[in-house]
């Protein structure tokens, strides 16, 4: 009989046996984005344990310019800006990714369930998401924080809730055509357990849009958390935080710009990292979908 042989990979085409979802990591943009974020996380983590000076002690004149061993000068209370920048990242560093990942997990769950079951489930879940979307995320967060008081976990929860509906919408859109694909219809007809279909057949096919969403939502949560901190509902003085630093030192912008610019650069690099991941992932998606 004619046992069809599998193609022998030619010497030129080295056997790339990578799981299809991981080809994202071959994109230069995604790699740069991940590198930036790892760099910022590392800076924040080091600052958590060691800084050149005590970030809460006054050691120089207010708004002292860089020099005299203070690489970035001093802030409005005469504290070392470099030390405060290093110490002030840790909150954003754990809160932003936590909120991004949590919103991704919840949003993906809602989106997939909505697309898979359709009908009333879909309608109820999506209207619920619409209600959440209708609140401006920042106002929504401020409302709760002003009532309950600023606690990091509350902030993460609120940012997560603010970001989740967007993820749910995108993932539902990406899952809808998958639900109609033959392999899913077959599994449903035959009676493969729903949990298996959702997690093993649909979810792995959403890796690409999830990567895009992760980058986007990370960017957003950095922005939201920094804004909240700037307004003063985040970390309370004398602790240090990037958003707070911008707010505290903005009066001295002309005299000692580094006290504002340094935390801003940190926030910007963090955001760009997320942006690069989203952009690179989206390009990989566009390229591979085009080939199919």
């Amino acid at each position, binding site marked *: *009989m*004619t*046992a*069809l*042989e*599998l*193609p022998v990979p*030619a010497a*030129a*085409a080295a056997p790339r046996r990578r*799981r*299809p*979802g991981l080809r994202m990591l071959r994109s230069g943009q995604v790699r740069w984005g991940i590198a930036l974020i790892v760099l910022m996380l590392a800076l924040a983590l080091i600052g958590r344990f060691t800084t050149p000076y005590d970030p809460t002690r006054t050691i120089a004149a207010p708004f002292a310019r860089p020099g005299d061993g203070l690489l970035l000068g001093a802030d409005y209370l005469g504290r070392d800006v470099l030390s405060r920048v290093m110490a002030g990242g840790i909150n954003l560093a754990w809160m932003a990714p936590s909120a991004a990942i949590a919103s991704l997990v919840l949003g993906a769950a809602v989106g997939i369930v909505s697309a898979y079951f359709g009908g009333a489930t879909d309608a109820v879940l999506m209207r619920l998401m619409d209600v959440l979307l209708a609140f401006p995320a920042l106002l929504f967060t401020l409302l709760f924080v002003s009532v309950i008081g600023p606690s990091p976990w509350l902030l993460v929860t609120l940012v997560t809730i603010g970001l989740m509906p967007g993820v749910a919408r995108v993932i539902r859109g990406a899952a809808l055509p998958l639900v109609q*694909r*033959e*392999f899913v*219809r*077959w*599994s*449903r*007809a*035959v*009676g*493969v*357990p729903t949990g*298996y279909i959702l997690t*093993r*057949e649909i979810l*792995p*096919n959403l*890796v690409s849009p999830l990567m895009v969403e992760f980058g986007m939502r990370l960017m957003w949560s950095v922005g939201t958390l920094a804004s909240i901190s700037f307004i003063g509902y985040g970390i309370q003085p004398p602790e240090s935080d990037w958003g707070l630093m911008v707010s505290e030192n903005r009066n001295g912008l002309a005299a000692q710009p580094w006290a504002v610019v340094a935390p801003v650069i940190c926030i910007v690099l963090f955001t760009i990292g997320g942006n690069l991941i989203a952009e690179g992932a989206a390009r990989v998606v566009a390229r591979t979908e085009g080939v199919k």
Partner: protein
Amino acid sequence: MAGIQVQDLRVTLADGSRLVDDVSLSVEPGRVLGVVGESGSGKSTLSLALLGYARPGAAITGGSVRIGDDDILSLPPRALRQARGSRIAYVPQDPAMALNPVLSIRTQLEEMLTGGKQARRDRIREVLAAVDLPGDDAFLARSAGHLSGGQKQRVGIAMAIVARPDVLVLDEPTTGLDVTTQAKVLELVAQLCRADQMAAIYISHDVAVIADVADDVAVMYAGQLVETGAAGPTVTDPAHPYTRALLASVPDSRVRLQLQAIPGRAPQPAPPWDGCRFADRCALATDSCRRATPALTALAADPARQVRCVRRDELDVVPRARVIAPEHPIDEAAASIPVLDVSALTAGYGGRQVLFDVDVRVHAGECVAIVGESGSGKSTLSQCVAGLQERTGGSVRLDGEELAPAAQRRPRAARHGVQYVFQNPYASLNPRATVGEGIGVPLRSFAHLGGKVRRKRVIELLDRVELPAQAAERYPSELSGGQRQRAAIARALACDPRLLICDEVTSALDVSVQAAVVELLRGLLDDGLSMLFVTHNFAVVRSLADTVAVLNRGEVVEHGSVRRVLDAPAHEYTERLLADVLDVPVAAA
């Protein structure tokens, strides 16, 4: 009038892989050259290269395309643009994509023409009359979106010929049309070429279509022409081993043939290597075939035919191999209860009724074919049986047990008992799971087989569908279409079905691969499986099925044994369909 002469045309990728490898051919005015090849043979790339175009990533790196005194490939861009359409014109596979759906037919035809308004109008009327379309103002004002598939293809041809080109290139213009429309388009092409003394190059995967429309044939494999010659002898007495193998895989609506698949898989585009491109799949290959690169050389017995094979003169020119498949006995009396009993089935979508009181019965070990044109409701019928779509009335019984309309409401035994294999092998397997994981799903979820036992069973199933054990570790994207379809069948078999529903399972596949799948299904029938085989292809029905039901607009118009229905159709609709079915001619005995 000039005809076309192509010399050593070469299209390469950036890495030096040749998609079209030194193709030379020529067509005299008034003649049709048919280029046959399977997917990946480079035939579409060739057709575009004739117009001086290569898709992004590929480039025309050598050769010439002469029409009269001009070499299309060395024309400056502006002259090349003018030559396209006026010297050499192109009819694409899908006219729906080529026509702008919002522009009127008149606007689209006029774009091709120069000269005064009245002259242009006259020419348009003339051309529309030639392609058998009305030329009145009402028709000209219609937009392409309001035409049927056959009409669109006629407009596509009209657009190609309106500027009186010397050469017409047609790339699979009838793929996707039903047989009746196809017959009309083919007749039109042949007649236009003769009348206007155009040279036509007709590209198709379908040997029967080429045999019907072409005067000469060129067989393409892995970017090269492997055999050229007059259509008649090339098709009836193929010389190149690939042509022989290809023809042995083609089913015939007149005879119940056993189909011979070509083993292996066509090579991927690669930089040139020594030896015959077909040697690895060739039953007649010797060591010399792998060392020496054969050239396209005249056959000693018939110098008008050229063959690219080192053994061309050693091998006897024999008529095309045809093996008759044995009839498949069905013991209707033994099984008084049919495996599947569909009666008075009705179904529809959103208020529109698609099926009207359909009755179908499948006995144990029987293969019942449901044949119909697109829109006849044949897929709706099979999906209602499988419970993928809910029927609105009638009953479906499996082994005498009534089945609920929706699969979700059926007992597990019934859900496993009816297995569905989809048309599109690219969508029927999870792209993010290995083939082994995919086939293992039912084994794990229902039979609760653990790791080792499950793997063993997966390998048994792969073996049953003639896939090697290492296929279990591959992702679907690493398999060919035919291999994926086998994997989908293996997954269906993992449920131990009573009835296998095959929905156009071979229509997305090349003939040489279709042959393997058809023979695999024949083996499953011999093992006692029952089958509902949905198709539009009468030749495959003849080759495989025992009984056939012809579906037209949601009604079964004729039902009976394949032999009876195909040899002596009783209903006028069946008769008309069969009259337009094309088969590869056979040498007179």
